[in-house]
């Protein structure tokens, strides 16, 4: 079961999200995260879906997505080098000597503190999937109150001079 990040360009019409989500639930595919926002072109939306599956399941997911009439393009980022980022807010317990410890962790991971109170801090973190997982695992010892994550967005890397 390999993790895959799919980029899906769709016509921005009512119901298009439901068509994509319904495909995954109806066929027993798994959505780990799903991110939707307007694409560059008017009337087009860009979805980034992370999913798990072996190559046969992934092939079906790609084909089935493509079969949806309002889906314009489907790309699997496993096919080549890509950049991938996700943003996350983590609200942690922050009292006494822990505050300094939290700030040092924030520094190391190049995160930002975006909200602070007498007892809590909210941290904004950006990174790929494994970086955010690493931050979360370190934050556990402070006591995590709440987490909000955007799900991944991804983009194909530009071709290097030598490849052109």
């Amino acid at each position, binding site marked *: 079961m390999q993790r895959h990040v799919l980029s899906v360009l*769709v016509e921005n019409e009512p*119901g298009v999200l*439901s068509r994509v989500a*319904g495909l995954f639930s109806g066929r027993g595919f798994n959505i780990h995260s799903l991110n939707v926002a307007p694409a560059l072109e008017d009337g087009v939306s860009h979805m980034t879906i992370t999913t798990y599956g072996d190559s046969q399941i992934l*092939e*079906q997911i790609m084909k089935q997505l493509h*079969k949806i*009439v309002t*889906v*314009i393009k489907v790309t699997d980022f496993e096919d080549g080098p890509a950049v991938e980022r996700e943003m996350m807010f983590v609200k942690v317990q922050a009292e006494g000597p822990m505050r300094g410890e939290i700030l040092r962790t924030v520094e190391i991971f190049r995160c930002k503190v975006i909200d602070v109170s007498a007892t809590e801090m909210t941290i904004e973190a950006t990174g790929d999937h494994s970086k955010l997982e690493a931050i979360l695992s370190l934050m556990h010892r402070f006591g995590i109150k709440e987490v909000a994550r955007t799900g991944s967005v991804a983009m194909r890397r530009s071709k290097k001079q030598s490849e052109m």
Partner: protein
Amino acid sequence: MERTGAQILLESLKREGVNVLFGYPGGAIIDIYDELPRHPELKHVLVRHEQGAVHAADGYARASGKVGVCLVTSGPGATNTVTGIATAYCDSIPLVVLTGQVPTNLIGNDAFQEVDIVGITRPCTKHNFLVKDITRLAQTLREAFFLARSGRPGPVLVDLPKDVMQASTEFVWPEDVSMRSYNPTYKPNLNQLRRSAEEISKAKRPMLLAGGGVILSNGSQALRELAQTLHLPVAYTLMGLGAFPATDPLSLGMVGMHGTYAANMSINHTDLLICVGARFDDRVTGKLTAFAPSARIVHIDIDPTSIRKNVEVDVPVVGDCRLALEGILDICKAKMGDRDWLEEHAEWLRTVAGWKKDHPLCYSNEGTAIKPQKVVETLFELTKGDAILTTEVGQNQMWTAQFYNFTEPRTLLTSGGLGTMGYGFPAAIGAQMAFPDKKVITVAGDGSLQMNIQELATVVQQRLPIKVVILNNGYLGMVRQWQELFFNHNYSSTNMEAQPDFVKLAEAYGAEGYRITTREELLPMLKTALASPNPAFIDVRVEREENVYPMVPAGAALDEMLLI
């Protein structure tokens, strides 16, 4: 000149070549019905239940190859179409289903007879639309018909709010239709066709497996030419019946759960399976790991999702079945014209012929009761294959598939993928509307006929001479068969203890009723009934506990058939 939404709708239907609508009026579409009498070119068939309307449109589409159209109201009218839509979706039948909807300002307010039919039918339509703006109406209808009939065909639903039907605008018919996100592949990749031909040239025991895609692509002739030129035996799925003549010496018969011994054994021994327009349904493959164990597989299908969904494939060919079959034959003729295919395949053909000879489809003639298989054989004898048969679902369907020798495409209309009881009788209405002069016969069970028996009123109102042959065993026969074989004779809720008098019922509706109870009556009474110019129910009392054989138990391999 401005036109109302209702006028634009009906005008658009005519431009799409529609001449029959199957429907049922109601509050949300009353504006369309108000306009309808001013368009005499559009014949409307008033059904008695919306499910009947969709099945009738489906039967029309399967028989004629054109898009079937139905028109129903919002709410319950729309939800009643769902089974029919799913039936068409599973068998890739082109339909446009027009549903009324509450006015746009009421959508989402739980208005009277409001239901989110676009949401409900999203997973069982090829695509669906809600038209919120009258200026999009003509374009949307153009796209709906384009989607329904192109690529892998399927049902498309268009939801029409009442205020959009009442509004007015200039009617502009879009001559061209194209959708950037929808481009079905018709022309198969030449390389893949070459590889397919190469596989054929290397194979010792090749065979064809034809599915509904051959019929949908009008590829029967191409299939026959390929098979006969290269001397390839042909098996077919339920949906592929008629694509290849059952009477041809190369025909192996139907494959799968109730397939012939020869077809299933061939699948088991072939070294090259060329599957055309079939999707390896579990009823076809049996146990997947034991399916075609020694075969390389060429899979031709217009829908890429069908390929490698259930079965690993050596040569995938995405494209129109007819074009692919023609392409492969052209390559074989051009590159291997000097090969003596008959000689090369002689040994394989002898093996196959042996299976056919040793284990033909058969049934026991013991006892005195009428055998249901004999009824179907007698139907073939009387019609000589020159008829359109529709079936219900269950034993009646399997016996029709086995014992009626279908020789032409579009002469068997049956719900394959979804297995919808109640399909056959309304589908016959559509077939008869498409071909008023053809003999149209439904083979029904006493159980499934009762699921849409109300359509007899439609048949009488339209004066359609449809004949319904009821294989009446007083059981839900196929479930009873499973209970007998796999559930220790526990006939739980399959005995239809109360049953209408089908003869009197037919007469009450204004049709004819016949009852056949003895073997002696079968041929003469069936002959008389079929010759009648009126619609008729023919209640044939058959052996109550007859089973369909061969049978591959669910989950077993194809060569683990129970034979009679």
